[in-house]
Protein backbone atom coordinates (compact mmCIF):
# COMPACT_ATOMS: atom_id res chain seq x y z
CA UNK A 1 0.00 0.00 0.00
CA UNK A 2 1.43 3.40 -0.94
CA UNK A 3 2.05 6.19 1.56
CA UNK A 4 -0.28 9.21 1.35
CA UNK A 5 1.23 12.08 -0.57
CA UNK A 6 2.58 14.95 1.47
CA UNK A 7 1.19 18.44 0.99
CA UNK A 8 3.38 21.38 0.04
CA UNK A 9 3.15 22.57 3.65
CA UNK A 10 4.30 19.18 4.97
CA UNK A 11 7.19 19.17 2.53
CA UNK A 12 8.21 22.69 3.50
CA UNK A 13 8.21 21.69 7.16
CA UNK A 14 10.23 18.57 6.39
CA UNK A 15 12.82 20.57 4.42
CA UNK A 16 13.07 23.17 7.20
CA UNK A 17 13.53 20.42 9.79
CA UNK A 18 16.39 18.92 7.77
CA UNK A 19 17.96 22.33 7.22
CA UNK A 20 17.74 22.90 10.97
CA UNK A 21 19.81 19.75 11.49
CA UNK A 22 22.40 20.88 8.94
CA UNK A 23 22.59 24.50 10.15
CA UNK A 24 21.46 24.43 13.80
CA UNK A 25 22.62 28.00 14.41
CA UNK A 26 20.52 29.47 11.58
CA UNK A 27 17.28 31.39 12.20
CA UNK A 28 15.08 29.53 9.73
CA UNK A 29 12.06 31.68 10.55
CA UNK A 30 13.75 34.46 8.56
CA UNK A 31 14.52 32.29 5.53
CA UNK A 32 12.66 33.58 2.47
CA UNK A 33 11.26 30.99 0.02
CA UNK A 34 13.39 32.21 -2.89
CA UNK A 35 16.57 32.93 -0.96
CA UNK A 36 19.69 31.02 -2.01
CA UNK A 37 20.10 28.34 0.67
CA UNK A 38 23.87 28.10 0.43
CA UNK A 39 24.24 31.85 0.78
CA UNK A 40 21.59 32.38 3.45
CA UNK A 41 22.61 29.45 5.65
CA UNK A 42 26.36 29.34 4.88
CA UNK A 43 26.11 25.79 3.56
CA UNK A 44 29.27 24.26 2.10
CA UNK A 45 29.61 21.24 -0.18
CA UNK A 46 29.86 18.78 2.72
CA UNK A 47 26.74 20.32 4.34
CA UNK A 48 24.90 20.03 1.04
CA UNK A 49 25.90 16.39 0.71
CA UNK A 50 24.41 15.79 4.16
CA UNK A 51 21.27 17.69 3.12
CA UNK A 52 20.83 15.51 0.01
CA UNK A 53 21.55 12.42 2.07
CA UNK A 54 18.90 13.31 4.67
CA UNK A 55 16.34 14.02 1.95
CA UNK A 56 17.00 10.54 0.63
CA UNK A 57 16.96 8.86 4.04
CA UNK A 58 14.15 10.77 5.68
CA UNK A 59 11.87 11.57 2.75
CA UNK A 60 12.71 8.64 0.50
CA UNK A 61 13.65 10.82 -2.46
CA UNK A 62 17.00 10.06 -4.07
CA UNK A 63 18.65 13.22 -5.42
CA UNK A 64 21.05 12.64 -8.33
CA UNK A 65 24.03 14.98 -8.23
CA UNK A 66 22.87 16.50 -11.52
CA UNK A 67 19.73 17.70 -9.67
CA UNK A 68 21.59 19.55 -6.89
CA UNK A 69 21.05 22.81 -8.70
CA UNK A 70 17.29 22.24 -8.48
CA UNK A 71 17.51 22.46 -4.69
CA UNK A 72 18.84 25.99 -4.55
CA UNK A 73 16.00 27.57 -2.53
CA UNK A 74 13.34 26.47 -0.08
CA UNK A 75 10.61 26.95 -2.69
CA UNK A 76 12.62 24.99 -5.27
CA UNK A 77 13.13 22.13 -2.80
CA UNK A 78 9.37 21.91 -2.19
CA UNK A 79 8.68 21.96 -5.97
CA UNK A 80 11.27 19.23 -6.51
CA UNK A 81 9.84 17.03 -3.79
CA UNK A 82 6.26 17.61 -4.99
CA UNK A 83 7.28 16.54 -8.48
CA UNK A 84 9.00 13.45 -7.05
CA UNK A 85 5.87 12.52 -5.09
CA UNK A 86 3.74 12.57 -8.24
CA UNK A 87 5.79 9.80 -9.82
CA UNK A 88 3.98 6.47 -9.26
CA UNK A 89 5.63 4.27 -6.65
CA UNK A 90 6.32 1.55 -9.20
CA UNK A 91 8.48 3.93 -11.23
CA UNK A 92 12.16 3.13 -10.75
CA UNK A 93 14.92 5.66 -9.98
CA UNK A 94 15.66 8.52 -10.05
CA UNK A 95 12.66 9.27 -7.80
CA UNK A 96 11.45 7.17 -4.89
CA UNK A 97 8.41 7.36 -2.68
CA UNK A 98 7.87 9.34 0.46
CA UNK A 99 8.23 7.14 3.46
CA UNK A 100 8.47 9.73 6.22
Amino acid sequence: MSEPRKSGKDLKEAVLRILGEIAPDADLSRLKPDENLREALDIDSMDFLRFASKIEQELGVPVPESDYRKLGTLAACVRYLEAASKIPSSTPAPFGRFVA
Partner: protein
Amino acid sequence: MAEFKMPSLGADMAEGVLLGWLKKPGDAVRKGEIIAEVETDKGVIQVESFAAGTIDRLLVEPGTATPVGAPLAIIREDGGGGAKPAPAKPAVPPSARRPAADQGEKSDRMRRAIAASMEHSKREIPHYYVSETIDMKAAMDWLSEHNAALPVAERLIYGALLLKGVALALRDYPELNASWKDGRAVLFPSIHVGAAIALRPSGLVAPALKNADKQSLSELMLNFKGLVERAKSESLRASELSDATVTVTSLGERGAESAFAVIVPPQSAIVGFGRIIEKPWVVDGHVVARPLVTATLAGDHRVSDAHRGGLFLRAVSRLLRNPAAL
Protein backbone atom coordinates in the same frame (compact mmCIF):
# COMPACT_ATOMS: atom_id res chain seq x y z
CA MET B 1 52.72 0.39 34.70
CA ALA B 2 51.92 3.16 32.24
CA GLU B 3 50.66 6.64 32.97
CA PHE B 4 47.61 7.86 31.09
CA LYS B 5 48.25 11.58 30.76
CA MET B 6 46.38 14.77 29.90
CA PRO B 7 47.10 15.04 26.15
CA SER B 8 48.53 18.08 24.41
CA LEU B 9 46.62 19.31 21.37
CA GLY B 10 49.22 21.92 20.51
CA ALA B 11 52.09 23.91 21.89
CA ASP B 12 49.71 26.50 23.31
CA MET B 13 47.47 24.16 25.29
CA ALA B 14 48.22 24.43 29.02
CA GLU B 15 45.47 22.33 30.61
CA GLY B 16 42.22 20.47 30.08
CA VAL B 17 39.22 19.62 32.27
CA LEU B 18 38.46 15.94 32.72
CA LEU B 19 34.75 15.54 32.03
CA GLY B 20 34.36 11.87 32.80
CA TRP B 21 35.75 8.37 32.70
CA LEU B 22 34.53 5.63 30.39
CA LYS B 23 36.39 3.01 32.45
CA LYS B 24 36.82 2.16 36.12
CA PRO B 25 39.61 0.37 38.04
CA GLY B 26 39.84 -3.25 37.01
CA ASP B 27 38.48 -2.66 33.49
CA ALA B 28 40.45 -3.86 30.52
CA VAL B 29 41.63 -1.31 27.95
CA ARG B 30 42.91 -1.82 24.44
CA LYS B 31 45.49 0.38 22.77
CA GLY B 32 43.58 3.15 20.99
CA GLU B 33 40.41 2.65 23.03
CA ILE B 34 38.67 5.81 24.25
CA ILE B 35 38.73 5.92 28.01
CA ALA B 36 38.05 9.56 28.96
CA GLU B 37 36.45 12.78 27.76
CA VAL B 38 38.26 16.06 28.26
CA GLU B 39 37.14 19.63 27.62
CA THR B 40 39.79 21.84 26.06
CA ASP B 41 39.88 25.21 24.36
CA LYS B 42 39.40 23.30 21.10
CA GLY B 43 36.18 21.74 22.38
CA VAL B 44 35.35 18.41 23.94
CA ILE B 45 37.68 15.61 22.86
CA GLN B 46 37.79 11.89 23.41
CA VAL B 47 41.09 10.60 24.71
CA GLU B 48 42.47 7.20 23.72
CA SER B 49 44.77 4.95 25.69
CA PHE B 50 48.26 4.47 24.30
CA ALA B 51 48.73 1.30 26.32
CA ALA B 52 46.91 -2.03 26.53
CA GLY B 53 46.18 -3.54 29.92
CA THR B 54 43.98 -2.98 32.94
CA ILE B 55 43.01 0.25 34.68
CA ASP B 56 44.87 0.23 37.98
CA ARG B 57 43.91 3.62 39.43
CA LEU B 58 42.02 6.73 38.38
CA LEU B 59 43.96 9.71 39.73
CA VAL B 60 41.70 12.61 38.78
CA GLU B 61 38.05 13.26 39.57
CA PRO B 62 35.72 14.46 36.80
CA GLY B 63 35.46 18.24 36.74
CA THR B 64 39.13 18.74 37.59
CA ALA B 65 41.36 21.07 35.54
CA THR B 66 44.64 19.24 34.92
CA PRO B 67 47.88 20.48 33.29
CA VAL B 68 49.02 18.97 29.99
CA GLY B 69 51.22 15.93 30.65
CA ALA B 70 49.94 15.33 34.19
CA PRO B 71 48.93 11.71 34.88
CA LEU B 72 45.18 11.05 34.91
CA ALA B 73 45.26 7.31 35.50
CA ILE B 74 47.61 4.37 35.89
CA ILE B 75 47.31 1.44 33.50
CA ARG B 76 48.73 -1.96 34.40
CA GLU B 77 50.24 -3.18 31.15
CA ASP B 78 49.73 -6.85 30.47
CA GLY B 79 50.74 -7.16 26.85
CA GLY B 80 47.10 -7.39 25.85
CA GLY B 81 46.67 -11.04 26.92
CA GLY B 82 45.11 -11.22 30.36
CA ALA B 83 42.70 -8.30 30.47
CA LYS B 84 39.01 -8.77 31.21
CA PRO B 85 36.44 -7.67 28.63
CA ALA B 86 35.38 -4.03 28.75
CA PRO B 87 32.04 -3.23 30.43
CA ALA B 88 29.20 -2.10 28.21
CA LYS B 89 28.27 0.79 30.48
CA PRO B 90 30.47 3.83 31.17
CA ALA B 91 31.85 3.95 34.71
CA VAL B 92 31.13 7.66 35.06
CA PRO B 93 29.01 8.92 32.16
CA PRO B 94 30.79 12.01 30.81
CA SER B 95 27.55 13.73 29.91
CA ALA B 96 26.49 13.68 33.56
CA ARG B 97 29.65 15.50 34.52
CA ARG B 98 29.88 17.99 31.70
CA PRO B 99 30.21 21.60 32.89
CA ALA B 100 27.52 23.92 31.65
CA ALA B 101 29.69 25.93 29.26
CA ASP B 102 27.34 27.88 27.01
CA GLN B 103 27.93 28.37 23.32
CA GLY B 104 29.29 31.88 23.78
CA GLU B 105 31.81 30.71 26.34
CA LYS B 106 32.89 27.82 24.10
CA SER B 107 33.29 30.17 21.12
CA ASP B 108 35.38 32.57 23.21
CA ARG B 109 37.64 29.78 24.42
CA MET B 110 38.13 28.39 20.93
CA ARG B 111 38.88 31.88 19.60
CA ARG B 112 41.55 32.29 22.29
CA ALA B 113 43.05 28.90 21.36
CA ILE B 114 43.18 29.87 17.67
CA ALA B 115 44.65 33.26 18.59
CA ALA B 116 47.40 31.67 20.69
CA SER B 117 48.32 29.16 18.00
CA MET B 118 48.34 31.73 15.19
CA GLU B 119 50.30 34.27 17.25
CA HIS B 120 52.85 31.59 17.99
CA SER B 121 53.02 30.68 14.30
CA LYS B 122 53.47 34.21 13.00
CA ARG B 123 55.96 35.05 15.75
CA GLU B 124 58.13 31.96 15.31
CA ILE B 125 57.72 30.78 11.73
CA PRO B 126 59.09 32.77 8.77
CA HIS B 127 56.37 32.12 6.19
CA TYR B 128 56.90 32.19 2.43
CA TYR B 129 54.03 31.93 -0.04
CA VAL B 130 53.81 30.50 -3.56
CA SER B 131 50.69 30.07 -5.70
CA GLU B 132 49.59 28.01 -8.67
CA THR B 133 46.43 28.24 -10.77
CA ILE B 134 45.04 24.78 -11.48
CA ASP B 135 42.68 23.83 -14.30
CA MET B 136 40.00 21.74 -12.59
CA LYS B 137 38.01 20.72 -15.70
CA ALA B 138 39.30 17.15 -15.79
CA ALA B 139 38.77 16.78 -12.04
CA MET B 140 35.22 18.17 -12.11
CA ASP B 141 34.26 16.11 -15.19
CA TRP B 142 35.67 12.98 -13.58
CA LEU B 143 33.83 13.75 -10.36
CA SER B 144 30.47 14.24 -12.13
CA GLU B 145 30.88 10.97 -13.99
CA HIS B 146 32.02 9.13 -10.88
CA ASN B 147 29.16 10.44 -8.73
CA ALA B 148 26.42 10.00 -11.34
CA ALA B 149 26.01 6.29 -10.68
CA LEU B 150 26.43 6.43 -6.91
CA PRO B 151 23.94 6.89 -4.05
CA VAL B 152 24.44 10.07 -2.03
CA ALA B 153 26.22 8.25 0.79
CA GLU B 154 29.00 7.10 -1.53
CA ARG B 155 29.55 10.30 -3.52
CA LEU B 156 32.75 12.31 -3.35
CA ILE B 157 33.10 16.06 -3.05
CA TYR B 158 35.92 17.88 -4.81
CA GLY B 159 37.53 18.62 -1.46
CA ALA B 160 38.44 14.92 -1.25
CA LEU B 161 40.38 15.25 -4.52
CA LEU B 162 42.27 18.27 -3.16
CA LEU B 163 43.21 16.39 0.02
CA LYS B 164 44.40 13.33 -1.89
CA GLY B 165 46.30 15.43 -4.43
CA VAL B 166 48.22 17.20 -1.67
CA ALA B 167 48.89 13.94 0.19
CA LEU B 168 50.28 12.18 -2.87
CA ALA B 169 52.41 15.15 -3.96
CA LEU B 170 53.99 15.31 -0.48
CA ARG B 171 55.63 11.93 -1.06
CA ASP B 172 58.09 13.64 -3.40
CA TYR B 173 58.51 16.73 -1.20
CA PRO B 174 59.08 15.34 2.30
CA GLU B 175 60.58 18.62 3.54
CA LEU B 176 57.05 20.06 3.46
CA ASN B 177 55.85 17.24 5.71
CA ALA B 178 58.24 18.17 8.48
CA SER B 179 58.77 20.23 11.60
CA TRP B 180 61.47 22.65 12.76
CA LYS B 181 62.72 21.33 16.08
CA ASP B 182 65.81 22.24 18.11
CA GLY B 183 67.46 24.04 15.22
CA ARG B 184 66.90 21.46 12.51
CA ALA B 185 64.23 20.06 10.21
CA VAL B 186 62.69 16.79 11.34
CA LEU B 187 60.75 14.83 8.72
CA PHE B 188 57.49 13.21 9.78
CA PRO B 189 57.45 9.47 9.02
CA SER B 190 53.85 9.50 7.74
CA ILE B 191 51.59 11.87 5.83
CA HIS B 192 48.67 12.86 8.08
CA VAL B 193 46.72 15.64 6.36
CA GLY B 194 44.85 18.02 8.65
CA ALA B 195 41.55 19.01 7.04
CA ALA B 196 40.47 22.48 8.19
CA ILE B 197 36.79 22.35 9.22
CA ALA B 198 34.79 25.47 10.02
CA LEU B 199 32.50 25.06 13.00
CA ARG B 200 29.13 26.67 13.57
CA PRO B 201 28.59 29.40 14.60
CA SER B 202 32.34 30.09 14.68
CA GLY B 203 35.63 28.35 15.23
CA LEU B 204 37.95 26.07 13.35
CA VAL B 205 39.59 22.69 13.85
CA ALA B 206 41.93 20.74 11.57
CA PRO B 207 41.82 17.06 12.54
CA ALA B 208 44.09 14.57 10.80
CA LEU B 209 43.30 12.18 7.99
CA LYS B 210 45.95 9.66 8.88
CA ASN B 211 48.10 8.20 6.09
CA ALA B 212 46.00 10.15 3.61
CA ASP B 213 48.36 9.28 0.75
CA LYS B 214 47.65 5.57 1.25
CA GLN B 215 43.85 5.84 1.34
CA SER B 216 41.64 5.35 -1.69
CA LEU B 217 39.42 8.32 -2.55
CA SER B 218 36.40 6.44 -1.17
CA GLU B 219 38.18 5.71 2.11
CA LEU B 220 39.41 9.27 2.32
CA MET B 221 35.90 10.65 1.74
CA LEU B 222 34.40 8.32 4.34
CA ASN B 223 37.02 9.30 6.91
CA PHE B 224 36.67 13.00 6.00
CA LYS B 225 32.90 12.78 6.57
CA GLY B 226 33.56 11.08 9.89
CA LEU B 227 35.90 13.87 10.96
CA VAL B 228 33.34 16.52 10.00
CA GLU B 229 30.58 14.73 11.90
CA ARG B 230 32.77 14.30 14.99
CA ALA B 231 34.02 17.89 14.79
CA LYS B 232 30.45 19.17 14.72
CA SER B 233 29.32 16.91 17.54
CA GLU B 234 32.42 17.62 19.67
CA SER B 235 33.57 14.02 19.72
CA LEU B 236 36.94 14.23 17.98
CA ARG B 237 39.71 12.08 19.41
CA ALA B 238 42.82 13.59 20.93
CA SER B 239 45.11 11.91 18.40
CA GLU B 240 43.03 13.30 15.52
CA LEU B 241 43.62 16.82 16.82
CA SER B 242 47.32 16.40 17.48
CA ASP B 243 48.65 14.14 14.71
CA ALA B 244 48.33 16.26 11.54
CA THR B 245 51.67 16.74 9.77
CA VAL B 246 50.44 19.27 7.18
CA THR B 247 47.15 21.15 6.79
CA VAL B 248 44.82 21.79 3.87
CA THR B 249 42.21 24.53 3.96
CA SER B 250 39.65 25.04 1.22
CA LEU B 251 37.46 28.12 1.24
CA GLY B 252 34.73 26.27 -0.64
CA GLU B 253 32.36 27.39 -3.34
CA ARG B 254 31.50 30.73 -1.75
CA GLY B 255 34.91 31.76 -0.48
CA ALA B 256 37.56 34.10 -1.83
CA GLU B 257 39.70 33.40 -4.89
CA SER B 258 42.74 32.42 -2.87
CA ALA B 259 43.70 31.58 0.70
CA PHE B 260 47.02 32.71 2.20
CA ALA B 261 46.90 30.57 5.31
CA VAL B 262 48.93 30.54 8.51
CA ILE B 263 50.97 27.43 9.32
CA VAL B 264 49.71 25.39 12.26
CA PRO B 265 52.63 24.69 14.66
CA PRO B 266 54.50 22.35 14.85
CA GLN B 267 53.86 21.76 11.15
CA SER B 268 55.83 23.56 8.46
CA ALA B 269 53.35 23.85 5.58
CA ILE B 270 49.71 24.60 4.84
CA VAL B 271 47.97 24.56 1.47
CA GLY B 272 45.05 26.92 0.88
CA PHE B 273 42.55 26.51 -1.95
CA GLY B 274 40.25 29.33 -3.05
CA ARG B 275 36.88 28.80 -4.69
CA ILE B 276 36.65 27.33 -8.16
CA ILE B 277 35.91 30.08 -10.69
CA GLU B 278 35.19 29.75 -14.38
CA LYS B 279 37.66 32.00 -16.22
CA PRO B 280 39.33 32.36 -19.62
CA TRP B 281 42.24 29.91 -19.96
CA VAL B 282 44.52 29.09 -22.87
CA VAL B 283 44.39 25.47 -24.01
CA ASP B 284 46.31 24.40 -27.14
CA GLY B 285 46.56 28.02 -28.25
CA HIS B 286 42.85 28.75 -27.85
CA VAL B 287 41.15 30.80 -25.17
CA VAL B 288 38.46 28.69 -23.51
CA ALA B 289 36.39 28.93 -20.32
CA ARG B 290 37.72 26.63 -17.63
CA PRO B 291 36.98 26.06 -13.92
CA LEU B 292 40.14 27.26 -12.18
CA VAL B 293 41.29 27.10 -8.59
CA THR B 294 44.20 28.89 -6.96
CA ALA B 295 46.34 26.76 -4.67
CA THR B 296 48.63 28.66 -2.30
CA LEU B 297 51.35 27.07 -0.22
CA ALA B 298 52.58 28.72 2.95
CA GLY B 299 55.90 27.14 3.88
CA ASP B 300 58.26 27.49 6.83
CA HIS B 301 61.39 29.05 5.32
CA ARG B 302 63.56 27.43 7.97
CA VAL B 303 62.54 24.03 6.63
CA SER B 304 61.98 24.49 2.89
CA ASP B 305 62.48 26.99 0.09
CA ALA B 306 60.02 28.62 -2.30
CA HIS B 307 61.56 26.87 -5.31
CA ARG B 308 60.71 23.44 -3.92
CA GLY B 309 57.38 24.76 -2.69
CA GLY B 310 56.54 25.87 -6.22
CA LEU B 311 57.51 22.50 -7.65
CA PHE B 312 55.30 20.84 -5.05
CA LEU B 313 52.28 22.90 -6.19
CA ARG B 314 53.03 21.96 -9.82
CA ALA B 315 52.94 18.32 -8.70
CA VAL B 316 49.56 18.90 -7.02
CA SER B 317 48.34 20.49 -10.26
CA ARG B 318 49.50 17.52 -12.35
CA LEU B 319 47.68 15.10 -10.06
CA LEU B 320 44.43 17.08 -10.13
CA ARG B 321 44.59 17.27 -13.91
CA ASN B 322 44.78 13.47 -13.98
CA PRO B 323 42.11 12.59 -11.39
CA ALA B 324 41.86 8.93 -12.35
CA ALA B 325 45.34 8.51 -10.86
CA LEU B 326 44.35 9.88 -7.47
